[in-house]
Every structure is written in structure tokens, then in C-alpha cells.
């Protein structure tokens, strides 16, 4: 494989790793916890901006960029700070966005917050350099290692893969734990659970904060590889794409989320580059998006649980003495789909 192809391949794999972490984050919030985070892309953007300014050094105006919080923190501090900031932002936003009891209303509030954030960042250039965004972000360890482009790419891919593995262990553990079961129950039957004394808002908040941290982490990893970030990268339509990935792949389970990341954010997005261009500029893309909309409707109609449905968790496993008749859960209740509740 020629060097250019190798580099392209590495880029796609790193993007896949980043998108996997992002999809797991949204999956925890929406697939498992039932929180429709329509402000998702804002968290990824926060992580990206912080990952950038914390390695760029203080804003001196020399490179014609202005931004806040400039510093040169050693790796992996920018990633850690980004994740922490994501958690903090989620806590702040969740404190009022999670107040309405209806999930679609929560989604609207989060969407509004996301738009407020993008407008403010765009208008107030002192925050993150407005429309032009931040650029020339140094890659971690690049000067010290003095590797070639390709070798450095493999190195960064390896670092990304390690983080993906760590995040996987975390989310897998959590979703299989009793807390995960409680979250799934909360997603399906919030009124029943709240009458049992579970604080729905608090549990939603926990899931929101965790997801926020992971989303910001994914942004930080991405930005230190591509070296730039601007409002063009976090258009509110991007949140929609991530939701599509989860729905197509299968909400509620981590493997489905990863599959969605590969198929929708990887294959579908990249495949457009290979289509022949026809008609006027933009026509091909308009048709592509129309097909995407039709695809989502088709999935929501024919296969709302996604390509990889969540595993049915049989109650019988917990109550062996009761036998096959007692405790057997029905199709609608315990098997969560994108379409129920």
C-alpha cells in the first residue's frame, strides 16, 4: 500500500476510534439512560476547543488567533481536563435541561442550549477565535519522537486504541451492572420507578455527566490529530448524525453503537467522496441526505431496535426457582428499542 493510502487508512481508523467513543457516550445517555441529548455535539466541541487551547500555549496574537485558557499542558493532561470540563458542562446544563419530565422537551432545551453556545462562540471572537477557529495545534510527542508522518500516525492510532479499550471496559462494566439495569428500567418505566423511590432526575444527571465527559474526551482526541477546529465542525446537524448512527447500529448496546459509528459515520460519510459528481454542485449531497432521511424512516419502521438489538435480559436468570412461566418478560417491555417508551 502506498504511503498516501496508508495515511488515509490511518486517518479513517483514528476517526473510527473517536466516533466509537462518541457513540458510546451518546449510547449511555440515550440508548441506556433514555436521555435525548440534542446538545451532544456541543460537548464534543468543548473537548476539542480545550484540547486545542491547552496545548497551543497562551494567546499572544502572533498567529492571529485569540482564545482563552491558553496553556501548554503535557500529554495526557489536555485529554483529562477536557473530559472533566465535559462533565462539568453536563452538570450545569443538566441542572435545568433535565427538569421537564418529558424527554422530548428535555431534547428541545438541550438543542436550544447548543445553539446558544455556537452563536456565542461565533460572535465572541475572544473565546475561541470565532469563525476561523483555532489551528496549528501541535500533536502530542511529535517533536520529541521525531517519527515520520506514517509512523507517527500509527503511534497516534495506538494511543487512540488504548483509550477506546479503556472506555469500553468502563461502559461495559457500567451497563452490565445493577446501575445499568436500573437505568434501563428508568428508560422504560419512569413513573413506576419513581414511585419505587428512585430519583429519576438524579440518575438522569449521572448518565448525562458521564456521557458529557466521554463526548468531550472524543473531541480532544480528534482535535489533537487533525490540528484545527472551527464552528464548521460542530454544526447542530452533527448531533443528528450521531443519533442516526445509534439508531442504525442499535441503541442500548455498546457493540451496536460501535457498528453504527463504523457504518454511518465511517462508510456512509466517506462513500459520498467516491460518487461521481453530477448536476450542479450540492445536488449530489442533497440527494444523499434525502436518502439518509429515508434510511432512518425505514429503520424506525422495520427495525427500530437497530442492526444489533439489545440483548434481552431475562428475568428468569435471576429467579431460577420460579421457572419458565414466572418472570418471563414480554417482547415489548424488557427489550428496549429505539421505538418504545
Amino acid at each position: 500500500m502506498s504511503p498516501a493510502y496508508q495515511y488515509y487508512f490511518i486517518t479513517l481508523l483514528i476517526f473510527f476510534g473517536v466516533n466509537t467513543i462518541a457513540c458510546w457516550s451518546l449510547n449511555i445517555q440515550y440508548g441506556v439512560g433514555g436521555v435525548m441529548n440534542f446538545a451532544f455535539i456541543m460537548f464534543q466541541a468543548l473537548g476539542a476547543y480545550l484540547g486545542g487551547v491547552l496545548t497551543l500555549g497562551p494567546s499572544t496574537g502572533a498567529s492571529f488567533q485569540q482564545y482563552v485558557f491558553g496553556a501548554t499542558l503535557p500529554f495526557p493532561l489536555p485529554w483529562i481536563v477536557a473530559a472533566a470540563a465535559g462533565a462539568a458542562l453536563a452538570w450545569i446544563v443538566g441542572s435545568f435541561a433535565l427538569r421537564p419530565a418529558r424527554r422530548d422537551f428535555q431534547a428541545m432545551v438541550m438543542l436550544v442550549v447548543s445553539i446558544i453556545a455556537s452563536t456565542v462562540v461565533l460572535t465572541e471572537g475572544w473565546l475561541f477565535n470565532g469563525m476561523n477557529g483555532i489551528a496549528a495545534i501541535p500533536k502530542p510527542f511529535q517533536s520529541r519522537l521525531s517519527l515520520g508522518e506514517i509512523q507517527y500516525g500509527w503511534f497516534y492510532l495506538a494511543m487512540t486504541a488504548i483509550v477506546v479499550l479503556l472506555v469500553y471496559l468502563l461502559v461495559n462494566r457500567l451497563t452490565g451492572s445493577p446501575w445499568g439495569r436500573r437505568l434501563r428500567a428508568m428508560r422504560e418505566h419512569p413513573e413506576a420507578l419513581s414511585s419505587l423511590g428512585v430519583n429519576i432526575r438524579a440518575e438522569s444527571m449521572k448518565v448525562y455527566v458521564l456521557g458529557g465527559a466521554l463526548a468531550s474526551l472524543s473531541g480532544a482526541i480528534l482535535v489533537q490529530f487533525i490540528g484545527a477546529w472551527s464552528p464548521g465542525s460542530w454544526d447542530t446537524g452533527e448531533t443528528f448524525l450521531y443519533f442516526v448512527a445509534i439508531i442504525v447500529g442499535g441503541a442500548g448496546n455498546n457493540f451496536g453503537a460501535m457498528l453504527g459509528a463504523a457504518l454511518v459515520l465511517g462508510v456512509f460519510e466517506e462513500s459520498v467522496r467516491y460518487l461521481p459528481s453530477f448536476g450542479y454542485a450540492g445536488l449530489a449531497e442533497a440527494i444523499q441526505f434525502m436518502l439518509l432521511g429515508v434510511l432512518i424512516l425505514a429503520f424506525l419502521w422495520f427495525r427500530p431496535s437497530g442492526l444489533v438489538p439489545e440483548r434481552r435480559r431475562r428475568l428468569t436468570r435471576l429467579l431460577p426457582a420460579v421457572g419458565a412461566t414466572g418472570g418471563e418478560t414480554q417482547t415489548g417491555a424488557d427489550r428496549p428499542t429505539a421505538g418504545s417508551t
Partner: protein
Amino acid sequence: MNQLTLAIGFGLVTSAILALGAVGFTLQFGVSNILNLAYGDVMTVSAFMAYLVNAGGAGIWLAMCAGAATGAVVSVLISTLIFTPFLRRGTSRFAMVMVSLALAVILQNAIQAVAGPAFRSYSRSQGTSLHLLGMILTPYQLVIIGVAAASLLALHLLLRYTRIGKALRATAADAELARSCGIATERVSALAWAISGALCGLAGVTLALNLASFDFHFGNAFLLVIVAAAVFGSVGQPYGAMAGALVIGMASELAAIWTPALKQVVAFVILAVILLIRPAGLWRKSFVQMDVAAR
């Protein structure tokens, strides 16, 4: 000329357009319990249809009627062909948001594919501005305010004093109970979509008139302000939507005196603050009523 009274006058125009949009949106929600995020694109389609009528030689009044009719037809179509089947299949309320989002994506890109990226403008004569009570308004703006006021008044009279209006309100409050009382809820529902679709079409045409030139994505860009106004006044409540439109329209014009770049942000922040105090919007204390009704 006092900045404040000027801004109030301009705020009235923005609120009028917003009110048409928000009341239509909230009606659709009231009768189907869905947040229809394809609403903005139906506005765009209606504006384009009105443009075709206008370009064919008709005056702006006829174009407005064409827009309203288009909005009604398209809304009824999407409700019977897309929303109702999904609802019958048992799709959850918040998954319906994804359905309406997908529909919005399809509509907007279809408009783009057919109409192309070029801007369109209605042909109409400008007319001179009128000075009233410290406000400056052009004849067309007065027309817009008048159309909005007339439509909302008509809606109010319909809901309050006619049998159809009562049937609408009954269906919105509790569909099953209404059905068992002998109300043909499906027909009533279709009527509600038609009325709200007409309001949607009117909102689209008046907004396009106000913008002077428009392209395929202007309706979608305005959608979030409409949603904000509707949610502010408790979505599902037409009078709440009118109040929400007034508050948000005024707030953004007044904010423009001090921070023009952030004027829309101010409107959204107001929404967020209201939701902090009253999570179900201004008109309702809590969601309990709504959940019981919406089965």
C-alpha cells in the same frame, strides 16, 4: 425617534409572524402529541408555492392564500402518511422526534434538489412607511400584523364557539374519551392538521415577505424560534403560544438595541429561564395533566 418605541413596533411584526407559526405548531402538538420538527420545511414549501403563484402573475393576496392552502395540504399528507402509521405502530413519543427530524431532512433536501440554491423574491410594490405612535411600519408589515391578528381571532372564535372547535378541544384533551363520546376523532384530527397547516403556510409566506429574498432553508432556520415560543407558552396551548410569540418577538427586538449579534440568544435564554421556574411552560404548572391526557 425613540429607540424603544421603534423597537416595540418592529417587535410587533416579528411577534405576528412568530405567532402564526407558534400557534400552528402548538395545535399540531395538541392534537397528536408530536413535536413536528418538519414544520419549518412545510413553511418553506408553502412559501415556494406562493412564489410560483406570484411569479405567474397573481397578486400577493392570492399568493398568501395559495401558501396557506399548500401548508394545509402538505400537513394533512404528512400526518396521514407518516405520523399516524408510526404512531399506530407503537413508536414512542420521543422516537417520533426522530421521525419528524428524518422527515425534515427529506423535505429540505427535496426542496433544494428541485428548487436549487438560488434565492427567490416576491414581486410586490414597496409602498411608503407610515408613522404611527412613534413606530414606523410599512403597509406590508401592517398587512402581516393584520393577517396574524385576524387568523388568531378566527381560531379563537372557532375553538370557543363552534361545535367543531369543541370537538377539537375535546380530542386534544383526551382522544379516547372523545371517541367514546361519538366524536369522529380521526376526522377532527385531520381538520386540526389542516388548520394548523394553513397557519404554517401563512407563517411561511409572511416570513418570506419579510425576508425580501429567501432560499430553501429559511423555514428550517426559523423553526427553533417557533418551538421556543410554543414551549414557552406550554406547548399544546394556543393562547400560550400567542403569549410566547409576543414575549420572544419583543425580547429579541429589544435586545437588538444593545447586543445585535446576540439577539436570538437573548430570546433563548429567556426560554431557558422560564423553564427553570415552570418546567411545563407558562400556562401549566406541571406535566401531569398532559401525560394523563396524551395516551
